[in-house]
Every structure is written in C-alpha cells, then in structure tokens.
C-alpha cells in the first residue's frame, strides 16, 4: 500500500474541510447557473456524493472492493417507490423504509461475504450484484422490469407545523443538502472513531487484526450493511430526482462507475476523495458530452492514465502539492504529514 489516510485522528465534529464543503454545497444553487451549469446537476452530484461517501467506507477505508454496489442504490429506489405506493406516502417514513430495506438486503448479502477477501470478495460481489439486477429485471409485478417504476412523487417535507414542497429541483436540492450535511458529520465521526481505526487496520492486514482480538467478520459485515443502508438513502433521493426507479443503475457497469468515481477522486487517501470524484464525473459528462457522444471513451482513457501514473487520484495530487509546498519552506519535519 503506497499511501493511506492521514494517520492522525481527530475528535472534532467540524473541521475546516467540512465547513468549507457545507458552505460550497449550501450556496451552490445561487451560483451554479452563472458557471454555465444547471440546477439538476447539483441534485445529481449530491445524491451520488452521498452514495460514494457510503461506498468509500467499504472500498477506501476497509479495502473491500465491491463491484455490485449499484444494486443497492437500485433496491433503495424501488423500496422508496413501493413504500410510497403501497404503505404510506410520507417522506420520512419512505426514507427510513428505503434505508431499512436496503440495509436488510445488505445484511443478508454480507453474511455470504464477510469472511471473504480479495478476489473472492470481488467476484462474489459481482455475482450478487447480478443476482439483484436479474431479479429486478424479471420480477416485473413488483419492479415493472425494463420499464421502471414510474411516477414516484417528490413527497413534501413534513416538519410538523409546515410542509415544504420539493417539487422544484432547487427545493429538492436542499433536501439532498440536508441529508448530505447530516451524513458527512456522522461519517467523519465514524471514520475517526475506534471503529474507523479498526476498519483501516483491516485494510492493512486482516489477519493481524484478527490476532489482536477484533472480530473481523463482524466489522466487515457491519460496514457492508451500513454502506448498503446509505446507498438505500441515495437510491430514495435518486428515485425522487428521476421521478421513477429504473434498473440501469443496478447493472455491472454502474457498479463499476461508482468505483471509478471514488478512485479517480482519491478515495484511497482522503475522506474527500469521493466528493471530488463525483463532481469530476458529472462535470466531465456535461462538458465532454457537449463535444462528443463517446465521452465515456475519453473519461475511461483518463481513468486508465490516472491509475497508471497517479493511482491516488485528485486528492492524492492535492496532497502531493501541499507536501511540496511545505517542503520548499523551511518547515519542521512533522508538518509534512498530509492533511485528511
């Protein structure tokens, strides 16, 4: 392992980067149109950031390469739609339902995965992703197969006294932002807790962690389940954004693209890697996509070159830059440690 997260942990709830990200995302609808983009891309970015941050618990922090995670985004979207149609069209209820159902699917899946490593883990996640994709495409009574589950409503935010509509993309954005804000605080605390410490140790050397006495299987099972639950929340928001739940996000390709986003941003070396990666992906899709229909070709090439020459991604480049700057100044050696 060439690089890792900053070794120092913190007990702070708010750090500089968290505050910065809240300010940037919080003000985004005010300036996004003046840089030539549009409101909906902000919604997409935030939803995928939520998904990617949850996924990076698994990929970056625990070193478990799941190639079937898109399936859980899809399950969340279907669960949200079905809860809304069949049970109770209340936003909070449906969000919790999406989280719970997806986490339950994840928990069952993780039973088969939590004692596996490396290649067997990767291949088994591909197999499970395909199983869920396959079931979703064939069980048309529930999922409507290739047509998708249509007309999922953007349920109003019920705050007891007032009810806020999120029918507009700008309004939906702020719901996603609220979810993001809560999630980023919780995940930051989690990754800087003793639990997060053990996850990082499992990534380094699973056998030794077991020798020290930690129940490795339980850690892997719980982090997989949690990561799936977060994917479920992202799926619920995505279902509202698209006003429908579709099967394409469950495919192997989308499961791979989420890995690609996290890696290209530098999820291996930084908590913020997934955020950079998702932004880069969606901006590249719109900017490159305006010039060529085969933008994915160029994005793929860029990714290949990045893995070859700078496998730590955007966040890795940033850390190198900071390190070089501190090195040129006569700074004490201890200050050359990278910031998380």
């Amino acid at each position, binding site marked *: *392992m*060439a690089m890792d997260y900053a070794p120092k942990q913190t007990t702070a709830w708010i750090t500089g980067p968290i505050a910065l990200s809240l300010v940037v995302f919080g003000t985004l609808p005010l300036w996004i149109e003046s840089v030539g983009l549009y409101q909906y891309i902000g919604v997409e970015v935030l939803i995928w950031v939520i998904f990617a941050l949850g996924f990076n618990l698994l990929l970056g922090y625990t*070193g478990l*390469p799941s190639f079937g995670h898109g399936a859980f985004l899809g399950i969340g979207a279907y669960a949200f739609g079905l809860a809304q149609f069949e049970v109770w069209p209340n936003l909070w209820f449906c969000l919790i339902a999406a989280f719970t159902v997806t986490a339950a699917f994840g928990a069952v899946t993780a039973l*088969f995965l939590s*004692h*596996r*490593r*490396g*290649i*067997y883990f*990767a*291949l*088994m996640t*591909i*197999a499970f992703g*395909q*199983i869920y994709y*396959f*079931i979703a495409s*064939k069980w048309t009574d529930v999922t409507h197969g290739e047509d998708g589950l249509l007309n999922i409503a953007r349920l109003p935010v019920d705050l007891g006294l007032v009810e806020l509509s999120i029918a507009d993309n700008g309004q939906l954005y702020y719901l996603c932002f609220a979810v993001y804000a809560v999630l980023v605080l919780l995940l930051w605390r989690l990754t800087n807790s003793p639990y997060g410490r053990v996850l990082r140790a499992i990534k380094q050397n*699973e*056998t030794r962690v077991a020798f020290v006495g930690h129940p490795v299987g339980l850690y892997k099972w719980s982090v997989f389940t949690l990561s799936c639950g977060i994917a479920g929340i992202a799926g619920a928001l995505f279902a509202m954004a698209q006003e429908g739940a579709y099967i394409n996000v469950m495919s*192997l*390709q989308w499961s*791979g693209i989420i*890995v*690609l986003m996290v*890696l290209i941003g530098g999820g291996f070396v930084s908590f913020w890697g997934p955020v950079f990666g998702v932004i880069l992906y969606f901006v590249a899709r719109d900017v490159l996509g305006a010039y060529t229909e*085969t933008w*994915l*070709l160029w*994005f*793929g*090439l860029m*990714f*290949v070159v990045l*893995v*070859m*020459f700078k*496998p730590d991604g955007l966040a890795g480049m940033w850390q190198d830059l900071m390190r070089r700057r501190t090195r040129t100044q006569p700074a004490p050696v201890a200050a050359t440690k990278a910031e998380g």
Partner: protein
Amino acid sequence: MLLNLIPHLINGLALGLLFALLALGFMLIIGVMEVINLAHGSLFTIGAYVALAVMAPDGGLPYAFMEPYYALPAIPRYLIALVVGPLVAGVIGMGLELCLRRTYGSDPLYGLLLTFGAALVLEELIREIWGSSEYYLPVPQQISGGFIAGDLIYSTYRIYAAVFAAAMVGVLWLFLNKTPYGAVIKAGAHDSEMVRALGYNLTRLRLLVFGFGAALAGIAGVIMAPIWGIRPVVGVDAVIPAFVIIVLGGVGSFWGAVSAGIMVGLVVALTAAFLTDWSLLSMYLLLLAVVTFRSRGLAGKSSVLEA
C-alpha cells in the same frame, strides 16, 4: 422423456466448455500477473466483432479493396476469422499488459481498476466502429442448420461448438502440462519472482501470458458469436458466468474450472429448457449452494490474491 433432454445437454456442454475456455484464460492472467482482468469480456467481444468483419461484407468494414476478398468461399474466410479474431484480442491484451506494468507491486486493486477503465474504453471504441445494433455472424453451410435424429432436432452448430471447445480445452491442457512453455507458465503462476530468479525473462513471460489469455477470450468470442449474436455488451453476459465458474471451481485449478464450466453450462441449459426467463438465476443459486459449503470452490487453493 430423458431422451428429449439430449439437445439441451449438448447446448449446455457447448456453453459450459466455452465459459471454461474464457475462465481458463482469465485464470492464467490471475496466476502470473495477479490481476483480475475485468476487460476479459471486452476481449471476448472484440474476438466476435473481428470475426464478423472477416466473415461478412456488411460487418463494419465496407471498404472497396476488400471486395475480392469477400468473393472467397465461406470456409477459408471462416478459418481466417478463427485465427484473426483471437490474434487481435491477443494483441490488444498485450497492449493492456504494457499499461498494467506500472501497477505491479502495488495493491492488486489498482490492476483491477485499470482493466475496468480499459473495458469502458474498449466498449466505447466498439460502439464507435460498429454502432450499437446487433449482428449475427454467418458461418459456413457445413456447420450451420440442423438435423433430425429420432424425434429430436439437433443444431449442427452447437455440436460443432461443443467439439471445438472441448478440443481447445484439451490442447490447452497438453500445452500447459506437456510442453516446457507450459511448465514455465505454471511455475510463474505459482511464484513469479522465483521464476525470474531462475533466469527466465519474467517481463516477456507476463506479456505473452496476458496475450495468450486474451486470445483464449477472443476465440471463445468467435465461437459464441453465432449462438448469442454480437452486441457491444455481449462480453458482460459471457464474463459473468466465467467469474462464477472461477469462484465455483476455485482459483488456480484447471479441472476445477472445466468441471465448474460444464456444471454451469448444463444447469443454465436445463433451466432454460423449462423456465426460460430464469435460466441465469440458476447459475447463481448453484454458486451460492457450493460456496456456502466450500469457501474456495470445488478445487481451489489459497491464493496471494486473498490476502
């Protein structure tokens, strides 16, 4: 009643042996390079498309200078396709290996990601050249069509595919076990650093093994093309069963992969005979049933990639 199953069994055997061919190429690459080659499906697809370009005048390369060539009878063109398809896949595989060199020695995840990026690139390239529509690979008359024996209809091509794939598996086994080249490859899969220490050119060995594994994917693509049709994403349909076979059979076991391949092929074909829609699910259920009881598959050994 049981006799009615014979055509399905032949289909299953053909599918299973082709999956096994794909899985064996994939396993050679894992063994020597310690890389999970996610572009393996794309190499399969490339084999199929190249065969199409060689066989059919409307197969994507409608250049005027090719016309005298397309006037050739079907059989020589098919033989050329059988050579050129794997060759192109092999060369692309070697190019991929050159890119992969930078990731050796770091986390195997980087190699896996690089090949995923390469798979995206290859798939988009295919779309760019051939478009997204579906093609069928024409084959010589002698191996197309069907015949009736007893009360049952047999597809000639399926029988040909099963025999061809079985022969390929046999040749591969002989190559790996009875030639000095095979011995070096197997030794490389066991401990590549030690092979280097013994004075073999490991760099060249890796290049050739990757090319060889890719060529196996390419030839499976050529043979599968008339059965499945040719689409840009057809590689995914082929490579997923190959992954399942590897987990089922266990990494590093030749006969594990072949027997798992035949099992998967038969299970898929038999379910397809009765419950067409759910045929692929049976494969995953088989996988779950086996790995629940044998975590390294039927015949797997522990691998560096597990750590």
